[in-house]
């Protein structure tokens, strides 16, 4: 526990945390506004040229309960990005700033250090989740009242389940970030790769999957869930949307990534020379 404390102290005593905070706040505000705009835009007209399954998806997404879960998990996308990068930097900065020598002299059992970093990253993830969730609980009831979808929806268990799963997403992405940081030791490479994969990766890979499913086989499309961002989105979606695998699949995929990266990263760190 003292090692986790030391890791959190490391984050606290550099400018990293407030830089990330300054990035997070406007992004959170933007995502609330976007979710609000989406919810109030309503369904497209019947002849807008969307396929049956697409319009079924959109209709389901516009049910009050799904609008509510979407709004109550506002900030997930950007919040997780910040947690992901911060978690990776917790590791890479040790090599970037050459502090790894000091760290491993103090704690020569390296798996203990990596474990502490996982712990610290999870705590940071939970803090960011708490921050966005508390703001959501204040702001979203007002939005929902203005949308006239039948009150705050806070009585619905589905909403609370979505909020809980949102926390799980933050935690899993934090673990993923630490694992990725261990694998990609270069600070610049790690933040760039994670940022790009997280932000544009989903659409690029979705496109690849789309082409594969069009020209190779339809079933390939179901594998989209192996993309971590898709898995994460699936996991927190309020009710099972038509055309998607069940929600637990998303959770399993994310847990799988976090576990594999975590174990492999720890194993590598134990083997490597620190020089």
């Amino acid at each position, binding site marked *: 526990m*003292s*090692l986790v*404390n*030391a890791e959190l*102290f*490391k984050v606290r*005593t*550099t*400018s*990293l945390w407030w830089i990330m905070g300054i990035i997070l706040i406007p992004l959170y505000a933007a995502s609330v506004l976007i979710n609000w705009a989406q919810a109030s835009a309503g369904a497209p007209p019947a002849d807008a040229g969307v396929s049956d399954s697409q319009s079924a998806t959109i209709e389901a997404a516009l049910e009050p309960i799904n609008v509510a879960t979407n709004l109550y998990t506002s900030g997930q996308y950007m919040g997780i990005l910040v947690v992901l990068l911060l978690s990776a930097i917790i590791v890479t*900065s040790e090599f970037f*700033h*050459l*502090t790894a*020598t*000091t*760290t*491993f*002299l*103090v*704690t*020569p*059992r390296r798996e203990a250090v990596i474990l502490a970093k996982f712990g610290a990253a999870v705590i940071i993830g939970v803090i960011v989740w708490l921050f966005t969730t508390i703001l959501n609980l204040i702001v979203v009831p007002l939005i929902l009242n203005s949308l006239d979808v039948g009150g705050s929806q806070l009585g619905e268990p589905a909403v609370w389940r979505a909020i809980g799963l949102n926390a799980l997403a933050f935690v899993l992405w934090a673990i993923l970030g630490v694992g990725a940081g261990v694998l990609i030791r270069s600070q610049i490479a790690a933040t760039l790769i994670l940022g790009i994969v997280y932000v544009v990766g989903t659409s690029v890979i979705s496109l690849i999957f789309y082409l594969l499913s069009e020209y190779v086989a339809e079933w390939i499309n179901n594998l989209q869930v192996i993309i971590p961002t898709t898995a994460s989105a699936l996991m927190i979606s309020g009710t099972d949307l038509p055309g998607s695998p069940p929600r637990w699949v998303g959770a399993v995929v994310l847990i799988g990534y976090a576990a594999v990266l975590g174990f492999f990263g720890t194993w590598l760190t134990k*083997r490597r*020379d*620190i*020089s």
Partner: protein
Amino acid sequence: MTAPGTDEIVVDRLTKQYKKLRAVDDLSFRVRSGRVTGFLGPNGAGKTTTLRMLLGLVTPTAGTATFGNQRYVDIKDPLREVGAVLEASSAHRGRTGRNHLRMICKAAGLPDTRADEVLELVGLTPAASRKFKGYSLGMKQRLGIAAAMLGNPRVLILDEPANGLDPEGIRWMRDLLKSLAAEGRTVLVSSHLLGEMQLLADDVVIVAAGKLIRQGPVDEVLGAMSGGASVRVRTPQAEALTAALSELNATVTATQDGVLLVHGAEAAAVGHAAFKAGVELHELSAERGDLEQVFLQLTAGKAGIR
């Protein structure tokens, strides 16, 4: 207290192979407590690699490096047993000196107050709340020494600690290390500054190209190489003095204008011979062997960067 012997450093047949290069090659030596041991060798001799293996940062290809018979990784509270200063820049640029030390305290389970105590010890208190990036090289070295002293360890390992210190800083460090050794601690210092080592070290371990060249007390190593002590005399009557000294059965070498180096005689005997022969002396001094010369002799031909 720890089990007896953990403050003795034992390097046994230690080897590190990097792809093609054998950075450390079957190296064995021991470092005793209560003395300052100088770890000397030309650039690329494998000093840093040896120290990093000793501290569990680099995995040996073969052999062991232990404290007593315990590896660093197996020591329960390593900071309370061993303090190390490896490179001057191993702190985060954006963190203050005090926070750097507090961070170590937290991870090692030491009280935060130790941070201020060691800052005082190394004279960094005025810069304690400044960020590391604003530190001079000498201040960084001092912070490194402060970090090593946090756990009040019985073994100290320093890799070129004199780097970047000003003359006063070097004198300060020499006094500090000598007093720590006098308290019975083990002090192992690597360095290139041979003049400084001659003043500081009790024992030396000389390596080149990853191999042990010589190990032992400084005086012994110097004596064995330079064939005993010598006496330096300066006189306007060099020939007369040479004649007078021939009775002493000593070898006399003329170096430069009027300076004679006398081997095999005490300074007092040389002075007495000159007095009897009525030879005027301008200088008379006992010369200790010169570590730099001995070092260059010992490592000649092996010093090339590999």
